[in-house]
């Protein structure tokens, strides 16, 4: 039975039926199947670690675009913010991933198989030549996983980038007018004012909104399964369900409640740690730039 293989070798695990509770548990929690659960925790953390900075960059770009005086760029920025804000996350996730996937395959189809005569759309089916498949059918499991993971990161980043763009756009406008006018009065160009005054000052106004987004992002990670990635929640349900001796050497009743309890603790601990870190960051940012000072300057604009 495959489950007998384990990623940690405990010699006593060869006959689980005879073991005491603690040893049984240590054997049970180190089966190959459980290693999938741990891997999915890692996948979630990796997703967060990549998505957060990338969405921040997208958000910054979006906010800058929405401020642009060139109307094409301005329109693009505002559209980006509006579309993603107005469409439910789930719909966007499903739509975007399929659309992107098919767009890539469509492009590859036209460059790689120019002689292909069959229609791409056959009824509701989307059929491209085998060479255009993303990834190739023959590709290893590893490539398939990486591809869907990359798509997931891109989708999360675009969605959360739009939220971040909205927050940053607001934060840029929250910088007191008097601060900007003073930069004008001292001869700074628009660009200098943006980089030297607005960007350094906006964080104080952006951080509460960004913290909020970070929490939402953490909580949104189970959406990964929509993108075909087996995430923590998937494995918790899979492993927790009751098992009879017929299928496993570790028969047990319905343990899902315990699995989900563990998940709950994981997510709660994670958000709590984030809160503490973000509070510290806020305290540091506000140290010099006391918002009260900014407010009195804004109020005093003549």
């Amino acid at each position: 039975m495959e489950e007998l293989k384990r990623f940690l070798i405990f010699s006593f695990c060869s006959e689980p039926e005879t073991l005491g509770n603690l040893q049984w548990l240590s054997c049970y929690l180190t089966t190959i199947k459980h290693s999938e659960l741990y891997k999915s925790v890692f996948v979630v953390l990796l997703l967060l670690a990549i998505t957060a900075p990338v969405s921040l960059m997208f958000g910054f770009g979006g906010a800058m675009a929405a401020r642009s005086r060139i109307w094409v760029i301005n329109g693009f920025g505002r559209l980006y913010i509006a579309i993603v804000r107005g469409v439910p996350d789930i719909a966007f996730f499903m739509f975007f991933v399929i659309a992107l996937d098919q767009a890539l395959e469509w492009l590859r189809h036209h460059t790689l198989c120019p002689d292909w005569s069959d229609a791409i759309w056959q009824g509701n089916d989307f059929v491209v030549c085998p060479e255009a498949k993303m990834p190739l059918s023959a590709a290893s499991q590893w490539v398939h996983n990486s591809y869907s993971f990359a798509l997931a990161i891109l989708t999360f980043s675009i969605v959360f980038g739009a939220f971040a763009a909205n927050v940053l756009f607001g934060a840029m406008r929250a910088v007191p007018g008097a601060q900007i006018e003073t930069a004008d009065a001292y001869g700074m160009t628009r660009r200098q004012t943006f980089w030297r005054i607005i960007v350094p000052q906006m964080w104080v106004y952006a951080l509460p909104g960004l913290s909020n987004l970070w929490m939402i992002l953490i909580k949104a990670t189970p959406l990964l399964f929509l993108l075909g990635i087996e995430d923590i929640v998937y494995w918790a349900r899979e492993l927790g369900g009751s098992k009879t001796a017929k299928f496993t050497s570790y028969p047990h009743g319905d343990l899902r409640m315990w699995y989900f309890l563990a998940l709950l603790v994981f997510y709660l601990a994670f958000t709590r740690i984030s809160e503490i870190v973000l509070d510290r960051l806020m305290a540091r940012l506000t140290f010099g730039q006391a918002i009260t000072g900014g407010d009195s300057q804004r109020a005093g604009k003549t």
Partner: protein
Amino acid sequence: MSNTDLVISISDLHKSYGQLDVLKGVTLNAKRGEVVSLIGSSGSGKSTLLRCANLLETPQQGDIVFKGEPVAWKGAGEARRPADTSQVLRIRTNLSMVFQQFNLWSHMTILQNVMEAPHSVLGRPKEDVKMAALAYLEKVGITEKADSYPAHLSGGQQQRAAIARALCMEPEALLFDEPTSALDPELEQEVIQVIKSLAKEGRTMLIVTHDMRLAWDVSDHVVFLNKGLIEEEGAPDDVFGHPKSERLQQFLKSTLAA
């Protein structure tokens, strides 16, 4: 008097916000080394005039000449704009503004505030700017606050820092918009002392103020603005000692009573 002796020359300036005519034809000159004070009741257009001088506001009509160089305009009426951005920047860097609410950049220390524009706008080397900045901070008496943030300074200290920031631009003239109005009476004096010492040095200054004592003491020329027009102007002894127009007499009576 040659043209270049005039640092700022404003003639027949009109400025309105929509229906509201704020300036209705104002002519004003500041010679090199001259201190000109602008007085007048609230809403008479003093700040607007000052802000037009360094092009923070665009007048719909009238000319502004900086050191013999007229500001180039394009468009007319509401659509009028300065035509030459580099000229605008050149004029702004030569007319340093001191604001009523100090407006120090809140994310920078005092020293960084003073060094910012000379370094990033004028492109002067950092080391030189730092030496100059420290010298100006000493001049206004807040060397020990160089590394503090604005929010941790008293109003008087902030305003003196703002004056150091203006001086560090090595401008042709300083523009003050009610520099003492936001300060408690005790703190007012420390700023007034600094302004007086600058006047003695022979700096060109345009000062909008509610402080008649200050205007009398430091000015070479006093301008009384009323409802967007100059009602009366002259040497401080004449304007304050022998006001001719009824409005100025009323204005002085009301401000002295206050």
